[in-house]
């Protein structure tokens, strides 16, 4: 079990010594739980940091935001920035480094292991609490404990952990500068890609009926894209708002700028958006599950990304977020890549 003081001491220490200019971690939210992402810059703020089952956010996103902020402000980074990173988050950081978004020395990874208990899926919690409102959560071995007005409630972690945690391949942050918590593996959990395999037993017609319903429901809030650390493009290809505008650009040219999809949140446009995103994430998505968590209309986005990830692993021997030095999935090839489908 990780002692929260270790996280706080590490953060305080590094900030006080000026070894890092900021620490990205979690603090308690305004309603007690869930935790919220925090970027602290002063040693005294280290005491705000928390580590509990509601620390489900992928903090690599805030690394990306920090870099963008610096780029816009035309500042150089100076000292590195530290990030408290779970196993999944650390893999996201590796992908970003693989793509040269950061240099390795710009980021100090304070790895934290969930030790196999995963993080909470809040929607699973309601049925275990009988209406009681939880104000705090804590790790407790194979259980999570929740503070409520009706006393402390203990729930087996397995019953309320996020679906992606059930299929997690690496709860321990392999890439780290310092790692807290044990490297626990071999949990008795669902096999990787289990949900995907179950879905694929459906027929083509059933699959279409399912996905059609999902894409009709999509409101194109773009939360999935906004929360993904890998979607760091300044301008997303589906927005296509930028057009080089000169004094003599005609209204017609502006109106006829390339638009891959319309702004209407109709099924066809939504499909193009989600397919494009899944392709752009192929080999890069580390299954942090945030896209699915934040979707306000419950679209099971992980299925799309998991499909790409399994193809990457099984057909191309490629593992996202495994090594900083490796090539990207779609900019590399092997002589024995499958080609039987080509006439």
């Amino acid at each position, binding site marked *: 079990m990780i002692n929260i003081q270790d996280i706080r001491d590490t953060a305080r220490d590094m900030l006080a010594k000026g070894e890092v200019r900021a620490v990205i971690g979690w603090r308690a939210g305004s309603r007690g739980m869930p935790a919220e992402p925090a970027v602290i810059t002063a040693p005294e703020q280290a005491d705000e940091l928390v580590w509990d089952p509601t620390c489900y956010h992928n903090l690599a996103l805030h690394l990306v935001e920090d870099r963008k902020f610096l780029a816009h402000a035309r500042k150089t980074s100076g000292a590195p920035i530290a990030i408290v990173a779970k196993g999944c988050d650390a893999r996201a950081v590796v992908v970003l480094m693989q793509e040269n978004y950061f240099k390795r020395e710009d980021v100090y990874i304070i790895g934290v292991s969930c030790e196999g208990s995963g993080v909470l899926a809040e929607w699973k919690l309601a049925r275990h609490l009988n209406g009681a409102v939880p104000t705090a959560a804590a790790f407790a071995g194979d259980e999570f404990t929740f503070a409520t007005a009706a006393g402390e409630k203990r729930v087996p972690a397995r019953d309320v952990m996020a679906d992606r945690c059930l299929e997690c391949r690496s709860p321990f942050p392999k890439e780290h500068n310092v790692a807290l918590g044990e490297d626990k593996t071999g949990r008795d959990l669902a096999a990787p890609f289990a949900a995907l395999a179950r879905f694929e037993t459906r027929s083509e017609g059933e699959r279409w009926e*399912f996905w059609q319903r999902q894409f009709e429901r999509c409101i194109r809030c773009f939360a999935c894209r906004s929360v993904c650390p890998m979607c760091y493009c300044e301008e997303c290809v589906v927005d296509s708002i930028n057009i080089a505008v000169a004094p003599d650009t005609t209204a017609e040219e502006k109106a006829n700028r390339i638009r*891959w999809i319309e702004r209407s949140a109709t099924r066809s446009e939504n499909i193009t958006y989600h397919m494009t995103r899944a392709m752009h994430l*192929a080999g890069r998505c580390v299954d942090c599950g945030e896209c699915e968590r934040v979707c306000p209309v419950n679209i099971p986005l992980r299925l*799309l990304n998991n*499909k*790409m990830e399994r193809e990457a692993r099984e057909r191309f021997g490629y593992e996202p977020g495994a090594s900083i030095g490796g090539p990207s999935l*779609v900019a*590399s090839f092997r002589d024995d*890549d499958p080609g039987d*489908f080509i006439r």
Partner: protein
Amino acid sequence: MSEQQAYEPKIVAFLCKWCSSAGSDLAGVSRIQYPANATPITVPCSGSVSPMYILSAFNKGADGVLVSGCHIGDCHYMEGNFLARRKIHLVKELLQFIGVEENRFRMSWVSAAEGAKYAEVVKEFVEDLRPLGPQEKLKAQRT
């Protein structure tokens, strides 16, 4: 004549300039008769075909999409078709995953000398597309 027979599938074909597009030209100058259902779009290399082109073609109502390039080892840009092989495989898997009929999207290697093969590829594609009817799943319903 039944409605089914009257339906002519529309194919969008992304052809690499150096091989497949030349191959389709050869079919033309050789006066090989083959169905006129494919609209060719020349691209520099099969590896340059972005998934967005394919999705956009379906969005605009294509009944079938073909990507065709140089044979492995013959890519004008050395590696482009190797990359295409990987990318197109992923697009194919993804389309099938959401329930788009497998026969609507295919890839071929057609060299500049294979005019007959190009004609054959298109002919087969049209025959495989006919029973599927017009593509409605990804097509934008514009009102």
